[in-house]
């Protein structure tokens, strides 16, 4: 038996022994960009998180909060790392208030878990005020057939991603077009500050201007300002009908022409996605014998009341045909859900074959999507680097996976770097930027991990100094190596 590590001894002053992991093999699994932590902690509630953070403050230990690990590959390698704080045991759904259309859950709850629970939640009852006419204060319940709700988000990695991770990364998916980003859907957060205090901001109301909107600061801060422990989201009732329409076009121009026409209508699709040929081949079930390697796809997600979805299916189908769509695929219910789930796991589908894949998310003004697609195509052709791109046409963002083939190591960096840099320049030129969400640690020093540095970085640095003066939270990982 080996001596318990000194860090374990410290941690056991605030946690149960089983909430501290320090087996070298486990530590390897929790390594961040190849940097192994000295221990992994699994606090079981917010108070325990605060205890751990206060210990870190006393002993100057650097820590990185972590959910399921689906986004740990982003950011610069940590300058130093002592603890990984896993939210795995913060797994309670605290309050499903579907009559108020809110849900409160702990950070470690998996997105799919809460969605499943909400979909089956039938308690849409509330106690009305005593009624002078009937004088019978009985609960009133909705008689809607489908009573379930959902958090109107469609983040990538949805099978594993935790609520804390999604919010910490302001991570969004195709339906942000209709429903917005986590920053629009999170009503309140409870978190532990780098000073070890438990603070609560926002709450269960959809409007709230009491004090500064500190929740916004936490959303998207990637664990660099504290540990998110609990969040309240806005809900929507499950739509009456959902559907997906997928179109195949012979070239990019036709696909874009179709998309532009979609946005000229008063119709409200939930998502409008353009798929590069490789993405199309990967994500769309094969139809007939036509060639697939040059086909550009457009996938529309539709949701809403019966009549509206019905109309959109009809209108878009005709519009697609007029725009030159080669094939048209229509999916409903289960097939619809499977398609979009698959869609959000494109990285997982490819990572086995392409362990060195580089995942990039670009952000730009809406109309720039065409330019961005063109640049991705040209840059990857120039350097013969395969690329899979899914472009969220109406939302000004896209996810592009560059795929150096499996065994390739020689000269890869020389090919990947100029492509990412070229893309970053293109986005910056449009008034946007780019975030590298995954790359081999060795390449990160040379990659523009957070895109162009905005002049407001001076303010971000001051916020970091105020909130985390000891730089214990994810040191060096965020924009500007904050």
């Amino acid at each position: 038996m080996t001596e318990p590590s000194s860090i374990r001894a410290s941690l056991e002053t605030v946690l149960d022994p089983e909430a501290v992991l320090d087996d070298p093999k486990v530590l390897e699994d929790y390594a961040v960009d190849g940097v192994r932590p000295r221990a992994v902690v699994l606090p079981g509630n917010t108070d325990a998180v605060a205890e751990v953070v206060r210990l870190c403050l006393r002993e100057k230990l650097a820590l990185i909060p972590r959910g399921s690990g689906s986004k740990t590959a982003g950011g610069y390698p940590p300058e130093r790392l002592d603890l990984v704080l896993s939210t795995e045991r913060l797994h309670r759904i605290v309050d499903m208030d579907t009559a108020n259309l809110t849900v409160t859950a702990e950070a470690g709850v998996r997105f799919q878990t809460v969605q499943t629970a909400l979909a089956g939640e039938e308690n849409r009852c509330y106690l009305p005020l005593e009624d002078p006419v009937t004088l019978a204060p009985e609960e009133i319940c909705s008689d809607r057939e489908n009573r379930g709700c959902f958090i109107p988000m469609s983040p990538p990695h949805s099978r594993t991603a935790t609520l804390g991770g999604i919010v910490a990364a302001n991570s969004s998916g195709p339906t942000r077009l209709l429903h917005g980003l986590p920053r629009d859907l999170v009503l309140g957060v409870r978190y532990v500050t780098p000073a070890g205090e438990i603070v609560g901001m926002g709450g269960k109301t959809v409007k709230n201007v009491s004090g500064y909107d500190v929740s916004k600061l936490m959303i998207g801060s990637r664990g660099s300002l504290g540990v998110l422990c609990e969040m309240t989201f806005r809900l929507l009732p499950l739509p009456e009908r959902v559907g997906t329409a997928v179109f195949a076009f012979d070239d990019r121009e036709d696909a874009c022409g179709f998309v532009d026409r979609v946005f000229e209508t008063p119709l409200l699709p939930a998502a409008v996605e353009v798929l590069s040929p490789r993405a199309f081949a990967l994500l769309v079930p094969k139809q007939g014998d036509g060639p697939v390697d040059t086909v550009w796809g457009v996938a529309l997600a539709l949701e809403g009341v019966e009549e509206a979805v019905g109309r959109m299916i009809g209108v878009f189908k005709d519009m697609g045909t007029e725009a030159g769509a080669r094939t048209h695929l229509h999916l409903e219910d289960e097939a619809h859900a499977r398609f979009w789930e698959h869609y959000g796991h494109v990285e997982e589908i490819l990572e086995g074959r392409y362990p060195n894949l580089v995942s990039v998310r670009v952000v730009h003004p809406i109309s720039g999507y065409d330019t961005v697609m063109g640049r991705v195509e040209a840059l990857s052709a120039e350097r013969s680097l395969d690329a899979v791109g899914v472009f969220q046409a109406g939302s000004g963002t896209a996810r592009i996976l560059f795929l150096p083939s499996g065994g390739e190591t020689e000269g890869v960096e020389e090919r990947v770097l100029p492509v990412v840099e070229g893309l970053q320049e293109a986005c910056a030129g449009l008034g946007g930027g780019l975030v590298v969400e995954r790359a081999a640690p060795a390449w990160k020093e040379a990659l523009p991990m957070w895109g162009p540095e905005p002049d407001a970085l001076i303010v971000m640095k001051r916020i970091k100094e105020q909130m985390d003066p000891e730089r214990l939270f994810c040191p060096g990982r965020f924009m500007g190596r904050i």
Partner: protein
Amino acid sequence: MDREKFIEQLGEIVGPDHVLTSDMDLVLYGYDASLVRGKADVVVLPGSTEEVSRAMALAYEEGIPVVARGSGTNLSGGTIPHQGGMVIHLSRMNRILEIDFPNRTVTVEPGVITLDLQNRLLRDSFIYAPDPASQKVSTLGGNVGENSGGPHCLKYGVTTNHVLGAEVVLSDGTVVWTGGKAQEPMGFDLTGLLVGSEGTLCVVTRMILRILRAPEAVKTMLAIYDTIEDAGNTVSAVIAEGIVPATLEMMDQVVMQAVEESVQAGYPLDAAAVLIIELDGMADGMERQAEKIQEICQRHHVREVRVAKDDVERARLWAGRKGAFGAITRLKPSYMVGDGTVPRTRLPEVLKRVFETGEKYGLLIGNVFHAGDGNLHPLILFDEREEGELERVKAASSEILKICAEVGGTISGEHGIGLEKLHEMSFVFSEGDLEVMRRVKRAFDPRDLLNPGKVVP
């Protein structure tokens, strides 16, 4: 530096005509729509970002407090220069700089009147969604400062959900951009942080706002009730049913009677409460949803549901709602308006307690509010000339906020904290929470010169 010299230097920056120093001017700039009063030392009306920057750099060097403001429709004392100093009135910076339909954005200066932008966009069938009742006079800069709401925020979200970026002047005069036309923040969401910061973090000189295509169809209904409980229960029932209308507004008898005297919106004077329910979006299925809502109204003993037949009728229904705060002074010379917000399911209970509070203090309370998102606006009516009345009003107002906090709500949904609700911040925030906000303030404004003494106690 003495006052004369400071004023002279400001004159060099913005032109002497744009520096106001007369006693009359300074008193006028000491008001907003709240009950608080103050007096500035000097008022400056800059015409450009550069002028704002230079004026602020000067104030920074001299350690002079700065209060930026628009039209002064603020309802919480946020624009009152209660510590004196320099008021920056941004009314001259009132240009719509760009309307970019392909990117669905507009770039505006802070002094643009909210409704002016909205009317301009409507000509091309686009909307800027946030619609505070004061939109005829309020400025977009003020809306951003306060994170303003409005009836349509139930469906579309508040101001912060529609601001993509801003050019801001920091306390020392440095100009930086946060965000831009891109659809999400890069790095920390500074834009999200400064929206609603009530001018305490920086001064916004340009804003990039999100615009939307105008909805294809709109349906507006007026539901009339004999008891306020039935109206409140209907609100909970509609939300629980899973219908999220564009608006779900409520008005009680006190307010309706005042409104009818002033704008003749056609509200029934003998009813206890009305709801204004509006659906918008695609036309398909709207009729069926409207029927469902009417069915819910029936279930809760509605007296009558009127559906607006055309835009004229719709405008008339809304004119009453939007003019409500103004009309209320027909009943009493002064009012204090609350802004507490509660989870929607707690609304009926909270309403009842609001009435009880009014009775307890012997005060008349009218209610006109955003029922769909649980945002109350109890209007406590009074006469400042009556001795001791103001104290009772303040006590009742604070008690109502306490009730809101107790049921899991908050003390302000859209009007802000300003000076009036500083004391009540402790109802919803711990000392630790407030300390985090103070750190935010220090990061932006280390010398505490921007709208000092507001928002965070």
